[in-house]
């Protein structure tokens, strides 16, 4: 336990995050004293977000310091909460009850258990293959055929996004990269920092210079200026963090650019789902951010691809 403390590069990463938090808090407070009536709600929301960031970073830091188990438990809880928000808002029927029960209490925990025992082969296929067969079968057994395909598809999609995709983030800890043994916590931190900073920077750039909407029907706050500025600056940040990873600076640029693009895709897709259902946020758990799923939507798309890129190129 707390072995991570002895990894000086990891400490630098934590220090960087702490520095960002302090700076953003100072900016938030100075904006607060100069706010006008027009900007009041935006600035209050900004400060609520910053406050929530402190809490999220603290929880995350403690979990990663505890080690592999800490990260697994944290992400399992996040998966659970995200799936809870998702299934609450996606229309399901009485006949889906048992299937949902299995999804929450067997499939999702099993996914994290498989990472815990490092059984890669089973971890990779359990949800896309076994759950894919199980979900429609158990709904069919329940006997209600109304909207059958829709219900099966929506439940499977929820399990894929909330459990399968997200579980690839802590699964980074089971990759054995030659010359990088024992430091895989840094990879997880790298992914989360680049992904979340991409979200934040897109938001900041969008608020500062955003003009042209990308897909206003789907997400009215996403602008081209925010997208380009956010992706460029988060990629620059990721590139600058190459020393904490097994990547060269150029590889780090490619990795963080990929993370940013996929994070954007994740946010856009989840926004489209929210518009379809007719809601703004998936929940109200995190102050200023909406729900858990609103916070991690970008990570859900970025994590599995980041995982497989590393596995393909860096694990012999």
């Amino acid at each position, binding site marked *: 336990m707390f072995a991570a403390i002895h990894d000086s590069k990891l400490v630098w990463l934590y220090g960087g995050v702490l520095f960002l938090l302090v700076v953003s808090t100072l900016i938030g407070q100075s904006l607060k004293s100069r706010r006008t009536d027009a900007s009041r709600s935006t600035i209050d929301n900004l400060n609520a977000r910053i406050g929530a960031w402190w809490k999220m970073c603290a929880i995350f830091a403690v979990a990663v310091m505890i080690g592999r188990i800490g990260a697994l438990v944290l992400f399992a809880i996040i998966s659970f909460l995200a799936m*809870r*928000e998702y299934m609450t808002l996606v*229309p399901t029927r*009485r006949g889906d009850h048992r299937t949902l*029960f299995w999804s929450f209490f067997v499939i999702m925990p099993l996914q994290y258990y498989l990472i815990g025992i490092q059984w890669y082969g089973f971890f990779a296929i359990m949800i896309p293959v076994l759950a894919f067969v199980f979900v429609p079968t158990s709904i069919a057994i329940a006997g209600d055929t109304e909207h059958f395909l829709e219900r099966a598809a929506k439940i499977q999609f929820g399990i894929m996004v909330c459990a399968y995709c997200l579980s690839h983030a802590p699964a980074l800890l089971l990759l054995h990269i030659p010359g990088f043994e024992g430091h895989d916590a840094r990879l997880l931190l790298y992914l989360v920092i680049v992904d979340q900073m991409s979200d934040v920077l897109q938001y900041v750039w969008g608020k500062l210079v955003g003009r042209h909407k990308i897909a206003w029907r789907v997400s009215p706050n996403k602008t081209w200026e925010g997208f380009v500025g956010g992706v460029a600056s988060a990629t620059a940040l990721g590139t600058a963090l190459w020393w904490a990873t097994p990547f060269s600076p150029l590889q780090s640029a490619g990795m963080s650019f990929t993370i940013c693009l996929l994070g954007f895709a994740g946010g856009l897709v989840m926004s489209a789902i929210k518009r379809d259902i007719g809601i703004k946020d998936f*929940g109200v758990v995190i102050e200023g951010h909406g729900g858990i799923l609103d916070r991690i939507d970008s990570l859900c798309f970025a994590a599995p691809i980041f995982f497989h890129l590393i596995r393909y190129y860096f694990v012999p």
Partner: protein
Amino acid sequence: MSNGIHPIASLLASVARGISGVQVQWAGCEPDERQRIYFANHSSHLDFVVLWSALPSDIRARTRPIAAKDYWEQTALRLYLAKNVFHAVLLERGAATKAQTHEDAHFVGRHLIDQMADALGAENSLILFPEGTRGTGERMAPFRSGLYHLALRRPDVELVPSYLENLNRILPKGEFVPVPMLSLLTFGKPIQVEPGEEKDTFLERAREAVASLRRIGNA
């Protein structure tokens, strides 16, 4: 009850809150120590515990559920939960309609109202599900008349409409394992029987007061 909350009741309340992830909104009134009858829609076994757990603990200690005697006396465990843990007021469901003659029905009905009025006493509140039984959660059944008679008997007690949303998906009737989705509980503005108001008019108005608190379209 003045003798405090049973530890099992507190435990079950925490479990129910955890499973249902309930978000409580006092939309039409504030939590208050005065005597009240909370009446709500009924679609799940979790309904009572969730509503009860949403009340501040000093109010909770003096709030009792009205429950169906035939159901809760079926097994020793149920009886223990109802009587000892939650201090439920157990009523003979449908006894008035089963009665042979009009006088009998009147007598039995009166007796039920007496029991509820006794349970209210000088300081207690009640939780009542006027539909009489759990529904599917899609449509509320018509309200039984107990609420009306009780309101006439105790005009000093506030009638608080409450809407429990999504609990039918968390633990539907006939299922014994819950699915931990999120739920909402909304307390509305208290209503009362207007002077000279007919029973059916009032009951429909009370039902409407509950239904109007629904927050999500497709629960």
